């Protein structure tokens, strides 16, 4: 698993990257009440806003971590947004993407690096 400074995680699965937010990010957000997912097939660039996530406190954007195409979204989150709080690094993945440039992954942290990053 790789981690971004935007508190996202990426896990490789069958040649695609599965993307979600970290346990730390979910704790900071508080109780999640709404998740808006992108359309499957959307072509995105790194840092595009692809997911809107609303907690009881505020709305936040989830950015595309790398360039690529959204191949699948986790529609379970639309019906059950609280899954983000229950299992952020497991069942509550947001989307899968086919990535354009694997070298963009190089800058990301491993788990130990991320733990150090969040202090």
């Amino acid at each position, binding site marked *: 698993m790789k981690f971004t400074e935007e508190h996202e995680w990426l896990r490789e699965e069958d040649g695609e990257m599965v993307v979600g937010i970290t346990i730390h990010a979910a704790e900071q957000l508080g109780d999640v009440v709404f998740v808006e997912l992108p359309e499957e097939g959307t072509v995105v660039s790194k840092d595009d806003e692809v997911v809107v996530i*609303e907690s*009881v406190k505020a709305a936040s954007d989830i950015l595309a971590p790398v360039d690529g195409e959204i191949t699948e979204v986790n529609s379970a989150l639309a019906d059950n947004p609280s899954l983000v709080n229950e299992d952020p690094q497991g069942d509550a993945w947001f989307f899968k993407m086919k990535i354009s440039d694997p070298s963009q992954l190089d800058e990301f942290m491993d788990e130990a690096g991320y733990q150090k990053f969040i202090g």
Partner: protein
Amino acid sequence: MDDLKHTALFDLHVELGARMVPFAGYAMPVQYPLGVMKEHQHTRDAAGLFDVSHMGQVILSGASWDAVARAFEALVPMDVLGLEDGRQRYGFFTNDAGGIEDDLMFARRGADLFVVVNAACKDADIARMKAALEPDVTVTPLTDRALIAVQGPAAAGVIAAMDSRAGNMAFMDVRDLNLDGVPVWASRSGYTGEDGFEISLPEDQAEALTRTLLAQDGVAAIGLGARDSLRLEAGLCLYGHDIDAGTTPVEGALTWAIQKLRRAGGDRAGGFPGADIVLGQMTDGATRKRVGLLPEGRAPMREGTEVFDAAEGGTLVGQVTSGGFGPTVGTPVAMGYVDAGSAKIGTSLWGEVRGKRLPLTVAKLPFVAANFKR
């Protein structure tokens, strides 16, 4: 956070693991480890304890109750004179344009009037009262008292177990109680839509009594986050958001708080700032009104969301002033102002969220029925 004021319970909040945020110049707990959603539900199911010591507490005293009450009636459109000893009312200060300068609670304590005002407005409120009322009435801010609220269906049992006199207090009654050896001023009121008490007490005894209350079955510390979602579901206004100096009591749907004898034709009609405008609107209506807004989907519509009368094109008819997720309702809830022509309950409107028009319905307030001790 360094220049923020602390309430007497600051150290306790930190010890309890609260996330502290700046609010009206104070460092206040927005949530505890339980989290906003569970804190909200706990208050509806059992009892929540809130620190509201940042609010302003002021005593007005004079030659007699009549003198104090009549003087205060020059600032608010309420029947103050008719308030019985040991009773409390909701009210607001108005300005010359009929706008609301602050909303408040006032209670009669013998010949004195005890006024509780919002933290963000308290300096201006005290200055306003001093300018208008002194020297005949003495305005004394109580800077050495804390204020806590215990709210929820379990609140009455907890407080009455400590002082049985609490048990037969009705909604908006005010009594001197003794809670675990601490002399307090308690009112049966709150800001959650639940039964409960607001308790003014000496600051130096606040932490000890709060610890005792939190040790009772069913009582948990609740932060400002849940306080906001509780009051929104209860349809209660947040000053500076749902009402302000530019909104009148008629626009704000608060005319229920203006007793008959201060209205046109009443024995003491008018005589408060902006009376001509407020009473005129009570007769002729206002061009906009505060209403409940119930989004149909799952997307919360937050403060500032623009409201239209069509899914595409159409006219801008209003704006959300408070909005979020209602944990008890289980869906997003909001309130805001809409043009009079769109204010009827059941009217279909659209809120624009991130460029998309999403359907909502003008809804009856409150969203969650009040559970007061009548």
